[in-house]
């Protein structure tokens, strides 16, 4: 133990010597809101997602930065007693399907493949920008998923399923390509916490509605609609967001939201995962909810040109007039350069990289298996049990054939 600490010391020292990276904040906010189930009796899953959609829009994320995936159209379902509307509460105060709903993926477009393509941005040329997650290293992303799931999987459309491993790999690919700054993952499904248990990419805060072998329950049904309209976990999240995060300047933190989870109300044990976040639990809890649910724009006001507009104006006039001249000059030079570039041998020899470069920076050659976060101590045990089971079958078979063929059977 001590030795390993000693070995870490130089690392710590070098990191101190490095120029400290400027604490950059995120520059944009994105939300990926996914419902994965079809059919009328799953009304509540679409209501969950639409409620969250309404909340993030209320807090300022523009539609162009929200990816909404709805596998079914409850508003136009013939069984809907209130055509054209979706409600997430029996009081039917807020029509979630009102104006300005921009569904990006709809119906049978909501598939595991499309979802993973969306996250990793491996899409074809034909995909419009509005259906892509155009995030960069300054983007905070809220990923919310709801549907029917089980241990380490979430069903899509009753036809296929996404496994926790695939989701973890997709996030790793996003991280590897610097496609997010920080990510808040929320999931409301049965055994939801298993879905984030396989994540291994940094800067993720994850929360889920229920533990392994535990169901996630709906909150209440609307007797006129005829089905349950919202799930408990989502309901209490929304309740918190509606009451505590009133305006975009709210200073409520992620920790406050997580503290509000009450297993007596939710009827399942909501889980939270901090360990992937740099700084751990403390840093993660201090993040503002608005960092994920709102849109932060650090607007820069030009104050210079308000009163003393004349001077800048004059300066700019000069510049732009000069530009006209400059263009022709640049063009000429460019042409000359082009001509010369053909003939010119590259004489500006670059300095060869010195051989003494620190090459002890370790190459991550080892395969990262998705499951590496959970150190499976009984791995060999499991394999041994499996091998024994197979061997046992063969033994029984062999014994059977032996007994059959043996003369002592008579």
């Amino acid at each position, binding site marked *: 133990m001590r030795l390993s600490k000693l070995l870490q010391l130089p690392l710590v020292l*070098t990191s101190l010597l*490095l*120029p*400290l990276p*400027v604490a950059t904040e995120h*520059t*944009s906010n994105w939300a990926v809101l996914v419902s994965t189930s079809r059919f009328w009796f799953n009304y509540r899953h679409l209501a969950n997602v639409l409620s969250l959609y309404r909340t993030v*829009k209320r807090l*300022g994320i523009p*539609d*162009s930065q929200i990816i909404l995936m709805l596998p079914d159209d409850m508003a136009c379902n013939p069984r809907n007693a209130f055509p054209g509307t979706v409600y997430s509460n029996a009081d039917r105060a807020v029509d979630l399907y009102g104006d300005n709903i921009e569904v990006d993926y709809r119906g049978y477009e909501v598939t595991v*493949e499309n979802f*993973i*393509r969306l996250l*990793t941005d*491996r899409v074809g*040329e034909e995909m419009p*920008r*509005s259906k892509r997650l155009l995030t*960069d290293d*300054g983007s905070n992303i809220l990923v919310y998923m709801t549907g029917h799931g089980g241990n380490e999987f979430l069903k899509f459309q009753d036809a296929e399923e996404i496994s926790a491993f695939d989701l973890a*790999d997709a996030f*790793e*690919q996003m991280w*590897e*390509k610097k496609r997010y700054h920080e990510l808040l993952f929320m999931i409301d499904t049965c055994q939801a916490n298993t879905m984030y248990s396989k994540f291994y990419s940094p800067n993720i805060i994850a929360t889920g509605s229920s533990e392994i072998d535990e169901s996630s329950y709906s909150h209440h049904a609307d007797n006129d609609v005829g089905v349950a309209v919202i799930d408990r976990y989502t309901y209490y999240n929304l309740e918190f967001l509606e009451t505590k995060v009133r305006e975009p*300047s709210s200073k409520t933190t992620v920790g406050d939201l997580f503290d509000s989870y009450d297993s007596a109300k939710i009827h399942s044990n909501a889980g939270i995962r901090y360990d992937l976040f740099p700084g751990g639990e403390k840093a993660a809890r201090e993040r503002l909810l608005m960092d994920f649910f709102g849109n932060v724009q650090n*607007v*820069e*006001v*030009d*104050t210079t*040109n*308000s*009163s003393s*507009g004349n001077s*800048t*104006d004059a300066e*700019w006039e000069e510049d*732009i007039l*000069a*530009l006209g001249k400059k*263009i022709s*000059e*640049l063009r000429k030079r*460019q042409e000359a*350069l082009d001509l010369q570039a053909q003939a010119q041998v*590259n004489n*500006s020899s*670059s*300095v060869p*990289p010195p051989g003494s*470069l620190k*090459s002890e*920076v370790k190459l*991550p050659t080892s*395969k*990262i298996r*998705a499951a590496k976060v959970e150190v499976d101590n009984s791995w060999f045990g499991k394999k041994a049990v499996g091998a024994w089971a197979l061997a046992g079958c063969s033994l029984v*078979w062999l014994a059977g054939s032996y007994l059959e063929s043996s003369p002592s059977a008579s």
Partner: protein
Amino acid sequence: MALNHQDASSPAAMREPGEDSTASVRRDADAPKGAVVAATKRKEPPPETLGSIHLRTTVILSFWAIIVFFGLPLWWKTTAIYRADLPLDEMMDWDKGVACRPVFPLRISIEASSLQEHEAQHLLRTTQHALDDLNDFSAHHLRLQLAQPANASISADGSTTGGLEDEVALTIKVLPGPEQASELQSYSPVLDIYYTPNQVPSSSSSSSPLATYIANQLRTIFAEEQAMIAHLLSTSSAPPERSPKAPPPEVAEALAKWTSRSMKYSPTYHLTFSLFTPTATPSSWDIETAIEEHMKPLLDTLSSISNFTIDTQVQLYASPGVSGALLKKEDLSGFINAAEWPLSPSIGGAPTINFILYAGDMEVEGGGRSWLIPQWGGVVVQANVTDLRPTMLIFSNQLLALLGAPEAGSLPLRLMTLIRVRSAGLLLKASGTLGSLARLTRALPSISIPQSVAEGVYTTIEHLRKACDGLGGKEALRNARIAEEAAEKAFFEKSMVGQVYFPDEHKVAVYLPLLGPIGVPLVMGLLKDFKAWKKRRSAI
């Protein structure tokens, strides 16, 4: 062989029909001792002929041969994931910054026609010396040269003279004047330095006030660019010793702001100019001529960096997200009515930069009427839209800021700095993408890698090499652009979607029902035959 049942009470006959017939045969041989013997000692089948043994062995072996030589390769071939060979180590080298050491040799030519040849040489040497002393960032260094008529054949560092041939970042004109002064020409990258006659360095002294002055001026001019490039390098995964020491906090803050403000690089940007009016008037604006007059020249000069497409729109009865004549600064982020204003991002494949003119009478607290939204665009509030000139000038300024141009210096210098910073950024980004791809290839063995990815990687490396060799010029930017595009395309290859995770249990579940019925007879047959063979051998 079928004989009749002679003795129904015989226990042997009761047992099995197969045994029954063999037992009967044997009983016929030693008839009188009868039933008791048959019950205790079973009769053996007649020995197999050598031919049938051979036949059986051949059948079993041929089954196995088919399985081993045909079945297994077929199974292997059809279930293997195609993974093209990637030069992983080379890709990692690029990512770590080992393959390329970004160096920006900026050529600065000195025109000193008023000085004697040897004086000019001396000035150049001392200035270069002073510059090298001041510079603590090896990746970005200024190299002075004399711009002289053809008769001067030797210059300080032995490089060919003739500043026109090389890409000169800045020309210094050393002119005699009444007092020491410097002036940056706003039309072209030329710095005028005025000196007093007594400042002409004597050839004996190793330093001179004029040289120090010029060095300091140059350093001031290029400080911002240097800080930007240093920032880029420090945020990349390049080895740390290459980066200079940490910048002072105010510079760091400015750099962070610059990073968060400027758009991510794209070969094409789409500019949308929108007029939003709260009522029915004004319903038109003379945007076309305004763009032609004020925007086009700027866009033309920027065309070596990116292309631009333009569209405009007018929206009537548009209300902003916040109301009131005096806008608070924290409300400004809500000014854009994202829900109702049609500012679609999906025009074409290029990122959109929005410029919004809101025809209302509003003012921001503190007296501003325009603001810039990082990585998104700019907003101007102006009641009267007949004169678009001031608005367009603000938009031009905002555009430069959004593209990441430095704030200080004359326009030509800013543009050239932008080119260098962009090529450095693109180089680092493409290198980083290569590294990401290499790491993913190693980390996700189940992902398939088509040949096109390998081709993209080789294209990237080739152009990265070219860009790295010629950093600082326009050709480098062109190469870096190609490299970055190819790297992105390779990374985001459509067919590389890893959604094929199968736990081991699934594999067992798939293969066991298939292989069980086939495998067990095969293995058992082999074992039985082997046992029989051993028995025969021991019997001999």
